[in-house]
């Protein structure tokens, strides 16, 4: 028993550094996902071009249907190699998780935009605001607030998914736990510790997002 805890204590700071890598991957992926997901959601809701909407539908179908691990292999060993891009495993992790997250975030945002009642759009137009102004000043401020719980969920999914980047050799928490375990043979203790660290990060992140939501709260948007 004590050997297990000794291994955990000895490897703890090494593992914490790994946890930081996971956080950076997740924040990067959330950013990439939002930057791509928001325009995709806007096109899906407002664009009159059936072609564009179909393209985005296909993107979403692809990245939501393909397993993360396969996608990581496809991009890391396949596509980027093929294109001759020499990207680090870390960068590929951020990009792939970001591309997948874009598919999910576009759907979160699409739902939020559609949940803003049509009357809000009409009222904006009736005042003489242009469609772009109405979306920018009336629809999005409401939709983005409504999307926060969805993001919170997306954060916790991405965080857990970020452990899969271990398969590419990213030196994140999971990889480091395994590394320490293969030296000390205390797998059980180290993996449980890694899992608890993931849970802690999830807890902290969702708490932060909840307090963000409370800060931005407006009466009537309590949910």
């Amino acid at each position, binding site marked *: 028993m004590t050997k*297990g805890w000794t291994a955990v204590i000895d490897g703890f700071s090494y593992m914490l550094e790994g946890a930081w890598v996971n956080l950076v991957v997740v924040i990067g992926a959330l950013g990439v996902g939002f930057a791509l997901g928001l325009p995709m959601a806007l096109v899906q809701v407002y664009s009159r071009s059936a072609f564009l909407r179909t393209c985005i539908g296909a993107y979403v*179908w*692809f990245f*939501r*249907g*393909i*397993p*993360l*691990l*396969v*996608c990581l*292999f*496809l991009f890391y*060993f*396949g*596509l980027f*190699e*093929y294109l001759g891009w020499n990207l680090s495993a870390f960068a590929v992790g951020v990009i792939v998780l970001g591309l997948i997250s874009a598919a999910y975030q576009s759907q979160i945002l699409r739902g939020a935009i559609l949940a803003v009642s049509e009357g809000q759009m009409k009222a904006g137009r009736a005042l003489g605001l242009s469609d772009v102004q109405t979306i920018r000043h009336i629809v999005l401020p409401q939709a983005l607030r409504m999307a926060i719980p969805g993001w919170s969920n997306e954060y916790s999914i991405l*965080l*857990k*998914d*970020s*452990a*899969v980047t*271990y*398969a590419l050799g990213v030196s994140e928490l*999971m990889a480091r*736990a*395994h590394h320490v*375990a293969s030296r000390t043979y*205390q*797998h*059980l*203790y180290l*993996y*449980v510790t*890694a*899992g608890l660290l*993931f*849970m802690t990060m*999830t807890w902290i992140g969702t708490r932060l997002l909840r307090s963000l939501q409370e800060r931005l709260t407006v009466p009537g948007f309590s949910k």
Partner: protein
Amino acid sequence: MEEIRYLVDEVLPALWRGLLVSVSLIVPSLVLGLAGGILLGTARVYGTGWLRRLCDGIVLVFRGFPLVIQLYIWYFGLPRIGVYLSPYTASVCGFVCCSAAYHSEYIRGALLSIRPGQMLAGHAIGLTAFQTIRHVILPQAVRRALPGCGNEIIYLVKYSSLAYMITCIELTGEGKILASASFKYFEVFLTVGIVYLLLVTLVSRALEALETHLVIPGFERYRT
């Protein structure tokens, strides 16, 4: 020509083998995971104090730990306490526990959304609490939980690929072996990806059909 031979002689048989392993991972995990989720979810709503807390705790852990770590615990961790599992068994155990935890969230939410009057009405005609849950509450709750549980099943199909990480050679694993031998990573993983896409599309069509089949007036709005 050589490409086609490679495809027909090596890629297709290997991927077919892998697909069969994947399916044999998914099917039992799906069934047991759903059953576990219903039990856990019901216990978390109607259970007595300690049972409810215990189940809440279990769910918290299985939803909080990344699935890869859970698989590593089943496969590399448990030998520490004398439990040795094959890669296949360890994978199924991991998938069942994880998806049961997620399913239980949807079941719980659905159960809580059933009006208390339904329980009272069950008691009023002389059903026991267990009978009311079984015959009145669950049939309603399952319909409400179905969209969420359906998503979970689709996640299961995709995350079954993680079995590769603990050396259970399923579709992804066969792909990795093929690609490492031929260096045709892009082609092989694109093919593997498409197989998963087809699988996911097939499962989601089936789930949609099931939802449509089960739909009754008043429960339509729970579809997404």
